[in-house]
C-alpha cells in the first residue's frame, strides 16, 4: 500500500518535472535573476548534449565533472574552462551571435576524448 501511494504521487510529479526540465533545458532561476544551466561532464559526453540560448541573454553555466578533469572550450563564445575531477566550474556567458556552436572538451580525458562535444544553439 505504501509503495502504491508513493508511486501514485511520485511518478506524476517526476513526469511533470521531467517535462519542465525538458522545455527549460535543465535551467532554474537564481535569486539574482540569472538563469543557471546545469551541465554534467563525464567521459566522453556532456549532458545535456544540446542547449538553446537566447542571443543577448546572460546565463550561468554550472559544469560538473563526474569523473576526471575535463575542459569546456568554445572559441566563438570565448569559453575556455577547466572542470577539475569531481568539481563544478561556473561561467557566465552572454551570447552575442546567433548560430549553432559546438563546445568541446579540450582537456585530454581518454581514448574517445576527441568525440566529447555538445551543441549550443543561440537563437
Amino acid at each position: 500500500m505504501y509503495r502504491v501511494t508513493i508511486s501514485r504521487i511520485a511518478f506524476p510529479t517526476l513526469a511533470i518535472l521531467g517535462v519542465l526540465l525538458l522545455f527549460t533545458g535543465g535551467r532554474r532561476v537564481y535569486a539574482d535573476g540569472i538563469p543557471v544551466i546545469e551541465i554534467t561532464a563525464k567521459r566522453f559526453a556532456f549532458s545535456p548534449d544540446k542547449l538553446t540560448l537566447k542571443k543577448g541573454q546572460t546565463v550561468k553555466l554550472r559544469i560538473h565533472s563526474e569523473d576526471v578533469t575535463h575542459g569546456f572550450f568554445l572559441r566563438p563564445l570565448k569559453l575556455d574552462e577547466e572542470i577539475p575531477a569531481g568539481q563544478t566550474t561556473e561561467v557566465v556567458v552572454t551570447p552575442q551571435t546567433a548560430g549553432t556552436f559546438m563546445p568541446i572538451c579540450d582537456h585530454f580525458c581518454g581514448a574517445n576524448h576527441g568525440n566529447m562535444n555538445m551543441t549550443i544553439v543561440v537563437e
Partner: protein
Amino acid sequence: MNQNDRRSFLKIAGSSLGIGVLYSAFPAASSAGEVGSLFSALGKSSGERVTPFSFVQLSDAHVGFNGPPDPLGTKAFERAVDMINALPQRPDLVLFTGDLTHDTEDRQVHVQRMKQFQEISKKINAPMIKCVPGEHDAGLDNGALYREFFGESYYSFDHRGVHFVALDNVSRAKPEVGTEQLAWLKKDLARFPKTAPIVVFTHRPLFDLRPDWEWFTSDGDDVMNVLSPYDNVTVLYGHIHRDDEHATGAVHHYAARSLIFAFPDPNGVAGPRKPLLFDKDHPFKNLGIRRVAFNGKPQPGATSLSIEDVELTAREFRGINGVQQLLRSPQV
C-alpha cells in the same frame, strides 16, 4: 643583401617518399658573395655551416590503435619505414610529429606500445630520429611515460646550420604550450639573427585551423609572436591526419598525413569530426605520398615549395589491389 636573398636562404624540396614528407634543405645560392657571407654568419650562430641535406617527417602512427577506421594496425607505419629505407638518398634525420602511440589507461600496455614504436622506428635507416609527443602519448600522464622513453618533450638542436625546435603542445593535457616553454623558446632563439633558418616541429597546429575539432593551440599566437621576427621559419606538425598548408606572415605551416587513418577536409564538414572510412580495396588511401619540390624561384616568405600529394594506392603495387597487397614485399 636584398630581402629575397635572405628569405630564400632555406629552401625545402622533396622527392618521392610514399608516406610522410621528405624535405631537403639547401642554400638558395652559391656560397660566394653576400649569400655566402650570410651562410658563414649563420654557421657561426648555430655552430655549423649550412650544407645541403634532407630529412623526413612522419606523424601519427598511433601504435596500438586497431579499429574500424584502420584495422591494419602498424602496417602503414612499417610500410613507411620500408619506403624511407629504399630512398636513393638517405635522410639525415626523421622528425616524428606526435601520436607515436595510441593512449591507454593501462600503463603496462602503454609501455608495450612505446616499445613497439621504438622497435619499428629503429629500423629506419637514418642516423637521427627526433620526436615530439602527441596528446595520445602524453595527455593522460602529463608526458611522464613519454619522457621515460624519449627524453624531454621540448628541446632544440642544430643540424648543418639549420636550427630545429621541438615544441610540446600536448603534455599539459590542454592544447597549449604554456608560459614556461614560451620563456624557454624566447631564450633559445635569442642567439640567432633574424635570417636564421628555423624549423619548428610540433603536434598540434599553432594556429586556429578548426578549433571545434581541437585543431588549434590556445597560446599559438604567443608562439607566433616569438617566431615572427625571424624570416625563415617553417612549422611542421601532425594531429590533423591530413595534409595542409598555411601561412602566418612569413611563417609557413605544413601538416603531414597520418600513418593510421585520415580525417576529412574540415571545410566540407559542419559537425563533429569523423575519420574517413577504411577502404579495403585501397588500404592506404589518404595516407599517401606528398612530393615536395623547390620550384627554383625565390619568393617572399620563408620557403618556396611545390607540393604534390599522391595517394599511396595500388600504383605502388602495380596492379594488385586490396589488403592482400600488404602481404607482399614493398616495391619501392
